[in-house]
């Protein structure tokens, strides 16, 4: 480990090199298009391709899976830098590709599944989605109703999914299904399968209109007698619940890391605006009230960062970080939107216009307390696990 005045507790020089390269890509190729993609309510498939070609998607995956073989901290760096593309929807689409739909394939996939699904996904050639949520079942995954019935050498899948990121254009879906709808307890009847979207009977029923994260496509999907070979079962039948929890974990961790950067970015934006805007003969950042609010906001961002890094640390050490991730998600769920609200005060009327990114962040940040497990779900998880801290 490098020592000296700039030594980091977590990152080494190689991570910083990766960071600089990724950041320059983001500044060059992504952030200039933020407005355009928000307006279009999608972003080009080519973004996945470029991210894959440059090795950004697979940085932490094993070399034999098409990755670069880096440690967990490369993932952390990616999640830290992505929000600087200034479009939360792009971040979400990319995080699903690298941190939600694919890590579980790397963990459990057969050599054929890795060749067919994981490698092209990390190369950015095949876009992935993770299909868990249904109209009547979100974090309550035991209540899933989409079924997969064995028929000869196949599974026949029927049901529907909703709020699926990358849903309108995914080439395959890491899909949670009930292989045993009568299982008691119900959560032991769930399995994960890999479903190519060119399977007959698959339809994108609706592209959903969202409050925020507009540049990401979010869809409602239907499965009508979709027939896939049984070799597309991921891991073991009946173990899907645990795989879903594992996918939630990597996804939530990346969301939390990204939220820290977004919080810092929004504060920096507010300062930049406040330094130029004069009110009654004095720039905004020289007013004591504003100075103290900015100090409070940075304090909250630092606390969120420290909590998130604690979760990363545990994850990197190979321990179960569920409690820490849930805590970070809880804190982020409250703080990120509150921060947006407070920062809006700086801009006055301009905050309410679409001329500055703050209005967009205000909408996007609300999702932190809802998506990937709501605030109340985090409270439930923490209350179940907190005894280990007594």
């Amino acid at each position, binding site marked *: 480990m490098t020592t000296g*005045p700039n030594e980091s507790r977590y990152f080494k020089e190689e991570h910083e090199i990766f960071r600089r390269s990724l950041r320059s890509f983001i500044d060059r190729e992504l952030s200039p298009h933020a407005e355009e993609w928000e307006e279009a309510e999608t972003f080009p498939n080519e973004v996945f391709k470029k991210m894959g070609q440059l090795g950004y998607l697979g940085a932490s995956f094993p070399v034999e899976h098409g990755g670069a073989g880096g440690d967990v901290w490369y993932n952390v760096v990616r999640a830290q830098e992505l929000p600087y593309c200034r479009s939360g929807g792009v971040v979400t689409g990319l995080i699903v590709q690298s941190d939600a739909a694919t890590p579980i394939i790397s963990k459990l996939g057969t050599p054929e599944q890795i060749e067919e699904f994981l490698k092209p996904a990390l190369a950015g050639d095949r876009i992935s989605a993770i299909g868990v949520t249904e109209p009547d079942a979100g974090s309550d995954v035991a209540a899933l109703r989409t079924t997969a019935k064995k028929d000869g050498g196949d599974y026949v899948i029927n049901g529907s999914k909703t709020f699926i990121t990358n849903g309108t254009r995914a080439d395959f879906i890491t899909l949670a299904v009930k292989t045993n709808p009568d299982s008691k307890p119900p959560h032991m009847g769930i399995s994960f399968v890999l479903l190519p979207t060119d399977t007959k009977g698959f339809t994108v029923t609706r592209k959903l209109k969202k409050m925020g994260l507009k540049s990401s496509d979010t869809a409602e999907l239907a499965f009508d007698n979709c027939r896939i070979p049984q070799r597309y079962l991921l891991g073991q039948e009946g173990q899907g619940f645990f795989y879903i929890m594992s996918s939630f974990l990597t996804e939530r961790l990346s969301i939390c890391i990204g939220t820290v950067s977004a919080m810092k970015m929004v504060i920096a934006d507010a300062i930049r605006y406040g330094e130029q805007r004069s009110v009654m003969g004095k720039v905004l950042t020289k007013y004591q009230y504003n100075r103290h609010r900015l100090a409070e906001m940075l304090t909250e961002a*630092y*606390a969120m960062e420290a909590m998130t890094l604690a979760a990363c*640390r545990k994850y990197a*050490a190979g321990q179960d970080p569920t409690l820490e991730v849930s805590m970070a998600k809880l804190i982020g769920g409250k703080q990120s939107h509150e921060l947006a609200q407070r920062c809006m005060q700086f801009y006055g009327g301009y905050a309410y216009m679409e001329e500055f990114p703050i209005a967009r962040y205000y909408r996007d940040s609300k999702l932190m307390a809802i998506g990937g497990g709501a605030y109340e779900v985090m409270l439930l998880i923490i*209350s179940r696990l907190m005894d280990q801290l007594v």
Partner: protein
Amino acid sequence: MSYEMFTAEHEALRQRVRAFVQTEIIPRVDEWEDKGVPREVIARGLKFFEAQGAGQDKLAAAVLIEEISRAGSGGLAAGIIAHAAVALPLIRELGSEQQQQKYLAPGVVGEKLGAVALAEPTAVYKLSAIETTARREGDEYIIVGAKPAVVNGDRADYIIVSARTGENETSLSLFIVEANAPGLKKSPSRLAAWRSAGCADLVFTEVKTPAASLLGQEGEGLAPLMKSIEWERIASALSAASAAMEIWRETVKHTKERKVGAVPMFKTQEISFIVAEAVATITAATELAHEALWKHARGQRCSTEALAAKIYAAKCLSETVERAFQVFGPAGLVEGHKLERFARDARMAMLTSGGLGIEKELMAEQMGL
């Protein structure tokens, strides 16, 4: 691979200090709130510290601070921190050989107790505005000024005092003044919190102190002062987060012992969610304090982090008290109840090192605003 910063030795130290706090401090802590902490208890507490290089190792100091703070007496913790974590490291860092012999060796075994009087009411935000002066006369310095509410002030054997020694704004010097020096008047200050901290208002009326009592170089006190206050902020963040965590543990225990009707309290959703929300904030406060500690221990710049850690932990401690009261109900306010003592001392975290308002102002300055 582990990314934890405390080593196995630190954890072993933690266990020893914890046992000491359990057996020797907690049973008598309420009694000491009225009578003051016996010197020999402080001395015994310091034995752990001596073994770890007497404050040289900031991580060991952090362990000591965290564990002592679990006793739930902010005053007792403040007294030990002022001596062991602030006074002794200043002497170790800046002291002459003679000063080290005179104060350090007896200091680490608790035979000599120190106090630190750095800031002043009008000079917390700007240390360069310190009004206490020291002028050289022959082999002595003459100190004139006042320092309010100094922790350990009524019981310390010596006081590290900051004073102005020149015209220049930054000409500050530090002195080790003997507590029995003629002209030094100590009036115990009766605070509603930190009762066992031994706080006293100090007035220096032409106090003569030998030239050899100058700590460090004349006129070069500002830098070590700033560094020391940065560390004090980290120390109080560690202390506040640890006290909050102890309140949380007591609260959880209570929810398992008590029932609401026929249902154990911890099984009621509202209560379990209050407790869950509390522990997330406390963990974040602890982690933030540890990030600042990690940097400070390596000599890295961390004044912004130290300020943020202090602000967040102080607020977290008071919030934790409020949440605990919701669980304990009025029972928590009964005199002699553990929560009552914790609650009394909790607000001090928001008032030390200038208080939150000053700290936010300092942070804004650090942010370049």
